[in-house]
């Protein structure tokens, strides 16, 4: 009997989802042409933004609040995983010669690319998120190949680095008050420097936070 109900529920869900998808598809097809207004507004204000790449300008200047809150969400996710009970550490990995030399080769290359992406963000695709994610991937690689990274939740300096992105963002935003402007408005001549400042710390924070999230919680000794 429960099996029958289960099948009925599945069928109902399929109908509802399909119906919604068809309705949304009609909506999408019949939408009026996209309005270029927003793109033009961004293009008009690019000279004030402090960078020459529009996506970076939107992320760190025009819609800075979004990015600020996103950094906070990352930290919240980390607090969430840490507030669960500690998990068992995976058994130690036996070092393999091939992987060892591979990581020795790859680590400087990836670090170089992290720096490149961070630098490129000002004028080309790239920026703090991509660089931070790459940094986290490097941490994952090193962790998986048996390098013991000094990542321990109790260490104060680690928590400081994790919060550094958020703090740098808030400092840069509060800088507007110092200059008699609104919260989150950068003085024209400092905009480039402030964005670089935020991005550098944000890269570090995002990298370390994402890597720590990868560990799936505080690890308990084996």
């Amino acid at each position, binding site marked *: 009997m429960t099996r029958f109900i289960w099948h009925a529920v*599945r069928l109902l869900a399929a109908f509802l*989802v399909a119906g919604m998808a068809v309705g949304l598809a009609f909506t999408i097809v019949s939408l009026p042409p*996209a309005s270029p207004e927003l793109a033009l507004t961004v293009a008009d204000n690019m000279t004030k933004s402090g960078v020459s790449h529009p996506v970076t300008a939107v992320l760190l200047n025009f819609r800075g609040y979004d990015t600020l809150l996103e950094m906070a969400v990352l930290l919240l*996710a980390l607090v969430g*995983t840490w507030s669960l009970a500690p998990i068992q550490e995976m058994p130690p990995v036996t070092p393999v010669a091939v992987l060892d030399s591979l990581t020795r080769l790859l680590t400087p290359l990836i670090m170089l690319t992290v720096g490149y992406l961070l630098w490129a963000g000002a004028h080309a695709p790239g920026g703090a*998120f991509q660089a931070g994610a790459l940094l986290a991937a490097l941490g994952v690689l090193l962790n998986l190949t048996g390098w013991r990274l000094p990542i321990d939740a109790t260490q104060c300096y680690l928590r400081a680095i994790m919060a550094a992105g958020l703090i740098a963002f808030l400092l840069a935003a509060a800088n507007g008050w110092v200059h008699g402007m609104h919260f989150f408005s950068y003085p024209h001549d400092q905009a480039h420097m402030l964005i670089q400042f935020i991005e550098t710390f944000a890269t570090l924070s995002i990298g370390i936070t*994402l890597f720590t*999230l990868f560990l*799936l919680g505080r690890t308990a000794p084996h």
Partner: protein
Amino acid sequence: MVTALLYGLTGLGLFALGLYALITQTHLLRKLLAINVLGGGIFLVLGGLTRRLADNLIDPVPHAMVITGIVVDIAATALGLAIVMRIHALTGHTTLPEERE
């Protein structure tokens, strides 16, 4: 822009697939995959719909929003996985109690 519309509709398809899987699949890892596919679909709809502007004019605002979304998505996935691990450690199951047979 046929391409943009095509990918927008693909995103819609992914959204529907993900939503259906989220409702019907019982394994929690599978549910997390479903949430990720669903999210990717929504991002594609957003990207596809705003790409229908005249050529060479690209709207950076949705791009920035999608990048933010992707990072939030991975954070949510990691938190979800940690919770799945906890559920598994406590109950030995990888499904929700109300969905066990």
